[in-house]
C-alpha cells in the first residue's frame, strides 16, 4: 500500500509484498510474520488453557468449543488414522492443527491480514519436524535397519521392479513427503493471499482512477470479499490436510508393512 502511494501507476502485487520489513530497525526478528507467530502461540495457549482449566463433566460453552476442536483432532484425525497407539501423537497433531489453522486464519482477520504460512520458512519448519517425527517413530518401532529395508525393498514386489521402485520410494520418504507437505501449505496460503491482494489493491487503485474505473472498483472489492470466504475454507482445509498427512505418515511408519 505504501508502495502504491509512492509508485507511479499500478504495480501488481508480487512476492515482494510478502517480504515485510522489520518493524524495529534492522532486527530480522521483529517482522510482522514473526509477531503473528508468537501472537498465535499466546492466543492458542490462552484459549485452550481457559477452555480446559475446569475439565468439567458437563462442559461450559468455552470448554465445549475447545473440546470440539480437540476431539476432532483426537478422534477424527489421530484415532481413525493411527489406530490404537494414537494417544502418543495427539499432543503433536493437536499442536500442528491449531498452529496452522490459527496462522492461516490470520490471513483474513481484519487488522492482522497476513497468513503466516505464506512465509515458506514456517511450513518448512513444520515439515521438518513432521519428517523427524515419523521417521523416528518408524525407527523406534521397527529398528533402523528393518525400517530402511522396508522403505527400500517393499515386500511383495518382483525383484526386477526394485530398480525402479527403490529410488522412487527413497525419494518419496526422504524428499517428496516433507517437500510437498510444506509447499502445499505455503503455496495455498501464498496464492490465496496474492489473489486477495490483487482484487483489493486493484479495487483501491481503480478508485483513484477516472470515473469509469471508479464504477468498476466495487466489483473488484466484492470479488475480494467472496474470495475472502473462499480463503477461509482453504485455510481450514490446508490445516486439516497437513495434520491428516502427518497422521498418515506416522501411521505408515508404525505399520509393519506399508
Amino acid at each position, binding site marked *: 500500500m505504501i508502495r502504491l502511494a509512492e509508485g507511479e501507476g499500478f504495480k501488481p502485487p508480487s512476492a515482494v509484498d510478502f517480504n515485510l*520489513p522489520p518493524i524495529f530497525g534492522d532486527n530480522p526478528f521483529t517482522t510482522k510474520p*514473526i509477531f503473528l507467530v508468537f501472537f498465535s502461540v499466546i492466543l492458542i*495457549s490462552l484459549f485452550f488453557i481457559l477452555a480446559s482449566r475446569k475439565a468439567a463433566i458437563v462442559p461450559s460453552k468455552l470448554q465445549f468449543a475447545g473440546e470440539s476442536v480437540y476431539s476432532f483432532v483426537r478422534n477424527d484425525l489421530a484415532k481413525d488414522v493411527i489406530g490404537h497407539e494414537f494417544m502418543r501423537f495427539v*499432543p503433536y497433531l493437536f499442536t500442528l492443527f491449531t498452529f496452522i489453522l490459527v496462522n492461516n486464519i490470520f490471513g483474513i482477520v481484519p487488522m492482522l491480514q497476513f497468513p503466516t504460512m505464506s512465509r515458506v520458512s514456517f511450513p518448512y519448519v513444520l515439515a521438518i519436524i513432521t519428517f523427524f517425527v515419523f521417521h523416528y517413530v518408524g525407527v523406534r518401532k521397527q529398528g533402523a535397519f528393518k525400517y530402511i529395508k522396508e522403505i527400500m525393498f517393499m515386500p511383495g514386489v518382483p525383484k526386477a521392479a526394485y530398480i525402479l521402485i527403490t529410488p522412487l520410494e527413497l525419494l518419496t520418504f526422504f524428499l517428496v513427503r516433507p517437500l510437498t507437505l510444506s509447499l502445499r501449505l505455503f503455496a495455498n496460503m501464498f496464492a490465496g493471499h496474492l489473489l486477495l491482494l490483487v482484487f483489493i489493491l486493484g479495487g483501491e487503485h481503480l478508485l483513484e482512477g477516472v470515473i469509469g474505473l471508479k464504477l468498476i472498483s466495487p466489483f473488484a472489492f466484492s470479488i475480494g470479499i467472496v474470495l475472502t470466504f473462499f480463503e477461509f475454507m482453504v485455510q481450514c482445509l490446508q490445516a486439516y490436510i497437513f495434520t491428516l498427512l502427518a497422521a498418515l505418515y506416522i501411521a505408515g511408519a508404525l505399520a509393519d508393512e506399508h
Partner: protein
Amino acid sequence: MITLAAEGEINPLVPHTAEIIVGFIAFTLLFLVLRSKVVPMFERAFTARTEAIQGGIEKAERAQREAQAALAEYQSQLSSARGEAQVIRESARVEGAALLEQMRAKAQEEAARITAAASAAIEAERTAAVASLRNEVGALAIELANRIVGESLDDHARQSRVVDRFLDELESQKK
C-alpha cells in the same frame, strides 16, 4: 521496501533464518503448553465423562440386581411362611379334631356314667319304695281285713300269701 525491491527478484521459496528459528521456538512452545496443560485436562474430562456414564449404568444395574434379589428373597420368605402357616393350620386342625374327639368321648363317658348312676339310684329308690310300700300296704291291708273280717291272721306265712294274692288281684285289676 525500497531497498528490498532494489535487490531485485525475491524467491519466495527461500527460507529466512530468523523465521526458521522463531518457527521452531514458537511451535515447540505451543507444543509444550498444549501437551502439559491442555491435553491432560481434556483427557481427564473425557475419562470423567466416560466413568460418569459407565458408573451410572453400573449403579443402575447393581440397584436392579439388588431389587431382584430382595424380591426373590421376599417371595421365598412369603412362600416359606405360607407353607409354615399351612403346616400350623393343618396341625391345629388335627389337634383340634383330636381334642374334640377326646372331649366328646369324655362327655359321652361322663353322660353314660351319670345315666348309669341315676338309673341305679332310681332303681334302688324304686325297689326301696316298692318294698316299703309292700310292707306298709300289706300291714295296713291286713289290719283292715282283720278289722273287717275279724279273722286273725297272725301266722306269718299265711299273711304274706294273703297279701300276695291281694296284690296280684290288685295288679290284674289295674290292668
